[in-house]
């Protein structure tokens, strides 16, 4: 006979089961406590190591645009082909097919793969185009023997236009030459990081995005160039190269009030879309990297300084000695026999003797001060690499010859940019302004861009610097522009630069170059230049054209070779910028 458990027994069983259950729960809770609390960090990092991979993501190089927002340089993604040599059978037929698909030499490719047979990674060709990538994928590849990696490819949609100003980016994405080099800190951006989450089989299941660690870049770097004016200058120089066959030429267009460089062209040039065949003499940006004796184009600055110092008067007459003047042991000559000339006529006729006499008033110290004041002898400070400072010898090395030579633009060497910057100072009322090529950056509106700016080592680097220094008074500068320099064009050596409707001012320059054989001045090698601007009362645009060693034709004068091209650039620019003609009333009234 079985007896039912007593109440005591039942209570005992319940207690036992409860104790066991509580004990089990306690173990679970204890384990949870250890996992979630005590070992949490350790286990989390362990899991992260297994699941997460951090990769560096390069910032897409910033676009470069002109002052109107037209694209000068941009970046697209391109694929680069690599192989794993250990998994690749060096089969002649396969190598030949691969070489044909990539348009490269089969023997060289085979040699490279054989030489690196023990490696696990080898670039075959970087930045292949879409057709090449498609052709490669059609080949019969061994498993896991190849792959593509995305890389940025810089593109220049305007071809050879402004190639010297832009520069280029090399195979590793580093800026070389032009603004690509000088503004690299603004263009390259800051690389970011992305976390990849992998599953147990190593497959990427998630890409985790953190806005703070994304790559940071500006939307665009804006230059002061105007693509249309740049084209005017490019075409004008092309015609000069065709007609006069010079060894080089350059043109600069500048807005005198702001110092903005609207166009900068150098010849010979190269195309940014095909960098494989660039002549060795085409790399140099002649606008900033050549120096030459400015010749007569320097004369207005000397006259302005003499007027400013009160050493000459505007209506003063100078005896030009009928074309021959003995200055110490040296005899100076003019092209024509001039008698007495006013200050205006000294510039209009470009009389060397008249200028030498003004130089005698200024003396060497005054001449040195004038050249320094207008920025000669040191770089202008434009944001372009390779700018030369020109040659301005220390004052203690000057002698009696210098008093006659400097006023006619000899014994010193300038860059074209220095000359047009100095001319801009006269045109804008006497303020010497640092020429600008960087107008600004676009993209500050977004949070990431703000963070980018803050993270820059020096945020002021994004701001183009403008340094203004006084040279001569506005009254003197205005007189030099509106009287002698305007008459140079209306009745002097720069008559070919007349533009109907506009009062153009200008100055021709023809300087003999050094003969490499004799070491003296050559009778055949010249540097012809012309600088002009308009309208004279309120100059909006100034243009400088320098032609180095014109070969064809019987003449070498700046007024014949450079002036027509400069006038063409100027007239088109004025029309394009909708600058109202200042001679409308006067001409219409005739």
């Amino acid at each position: 006979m079985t007896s039912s458990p007593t109440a005591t027994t039942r209570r005992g069983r319940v207690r036992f089961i409860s104790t066991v259950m509580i004990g089990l729960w306690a173990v679970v809770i204890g384990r949870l406590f250890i996992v979630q609390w005590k070992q949490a960090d350790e286990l989390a990092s362990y899991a992260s190591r297994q699941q997460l991979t951090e990769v560096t993501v390069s910032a897409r190089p910033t676009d470069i645009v002109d002052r109107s927002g037209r694209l000068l340089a941009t970046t697209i993604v391109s694929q680069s082909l690599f192989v794993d040599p250990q998994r690749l059978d060096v089969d002649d037929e396969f190598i030949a097919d691969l070489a044909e698909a990539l348009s490269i030499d089969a023997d060289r490719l085979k040699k490279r793969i054989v030489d690196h047979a023990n490696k696990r990674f080898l670039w075959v060709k970087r930045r292949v185009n879409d057709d090449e990538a498609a052709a490669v994928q059609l080949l019969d590849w061994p498993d896991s023997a190849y792959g593509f990696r995305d890389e940025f490819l810089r593109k220049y949609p305007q071809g050879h236009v402004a190639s010297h100003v832009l520069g280029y980016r090399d195979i590793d994405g580093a800026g070389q030459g032009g603004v690509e080099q000088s503004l690299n800190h603004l263009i390259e951006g800051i690389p970011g990081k992305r976390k990849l989450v992998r599953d147990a089989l190593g497959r990427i299941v998630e890409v985790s995005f953190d806005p703070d660690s994304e790559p940071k870049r500006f939307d665009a770097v804006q230059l002061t160039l105007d693509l249309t004016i740049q084209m005017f200058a490019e075409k004008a120089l092309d015609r000069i190269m065709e007609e006069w066959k010079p060894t080089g030429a350059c043109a600069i267009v500048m807005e005198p009030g702001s110092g903005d460089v609207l166009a900068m062209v150098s010849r010979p040039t190269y195309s940014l879309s095909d960098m494989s065949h660039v002549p060795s003499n085409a790399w140099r940006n002649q606008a900033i990297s050549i120096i030459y004796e400015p010749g007569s184009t320097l004369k207005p600055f000397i006259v302005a300084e003499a007027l400013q110092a009160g050493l000459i008067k505007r209506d003063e007459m100078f005896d030009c000695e009928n074309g021959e003047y003995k200055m110490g042991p040296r005899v100076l000559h003019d092209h024509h026999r001039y008698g007495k000339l006013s200050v205006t006529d000294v510039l209009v006729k470009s009389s060397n003797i008249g200028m030498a006499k003004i130089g005698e008033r200024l003396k060497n110290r005054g001449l040195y001060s004038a050249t320094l004041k207008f920025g000669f002898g040191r770089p202008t400070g434009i944001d372009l690499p390779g700018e030369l400072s020109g040659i301005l010898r220390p004052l203690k090395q000057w002698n009696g010859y210098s008093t006659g030579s400097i006023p006619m633009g000899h014994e010193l060497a300038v860059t074209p940019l220095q000359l047009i910057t100095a001319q801009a100072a006269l045109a804008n009322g006497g303020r010497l302004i640092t020429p600008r090529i960087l107008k600004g950056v676009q993209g500050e509106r977004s949070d990431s861009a703000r963070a980018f700016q803050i993270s820059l080592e020096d945020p002021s680097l994004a701001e183009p610097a403008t340094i203004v220094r006084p040279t001569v008074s506005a009254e003197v500068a205005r007189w030099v522009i509106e009287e002698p320099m305007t008459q140079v064009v209306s009745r002097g050596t720069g008559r070919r630069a007349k533009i109907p409707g506009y009062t153009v001012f200008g100055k021709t320059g023809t300087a003999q170059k050094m003969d490499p054989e004799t070491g003296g001045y050559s009778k055949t090698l010249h540097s012809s230049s012309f600088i002009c601007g308009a309208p004279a009362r309120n100059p909006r645009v100034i243009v400088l054209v320098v032609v180095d060693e014109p070969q064809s034709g019987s003449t070498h004068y700046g007024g014949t070779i450079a002036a027509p091209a400069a006038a063409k650039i100027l007239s088109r620019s004025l029309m394009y910028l909708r600058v109202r003609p200042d001679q409308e009333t006067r001409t219409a009234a005739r």
Partner: protein
Amino acid sequence: MFFRFGSALILVVVTSLLGIAVEKQNLTLRREISRQHYRMDVLQEEHARLRLRSQQLAAVERLFDTIEDEESGLVPSQPGTNSFLPASATPSHDESSNEESALGDTQVDEAGQGREPAVKSGVRKPDSSDLTTRRVPLLFWQKPVGDPRMKRGSK
């Protein structure tokens, strides 16, 4: 007791299932975010390529020769066509100074176009067969066929 035990068990299971569902939802959303970032990268690349293409097609250099070519009719071929200047403001060719003629200058007009002597002698008449110089209205309006309002209007 069994009811309480069962209830507790069901509660635990339901909580777990809810947790799993929330976790799955979380993973789905994170994947969607990843996908959207990927799409954004693709679209940015597409934008860059299309912008590049459009700028290549509209490159100033490509258009410049066409614009510069007087035959295109896009460049004023006569003096006085500068909108800023009245016709009388531009000196006629006869007014050009003897000095300039002696120098053999190429006359430069307000449009900056070098002018050959042959062109100087007369005004270029537009050729009626030259479509580029023909005046074409910017807007066309074609009478709709069978529009009752037009029928009314025609009465």
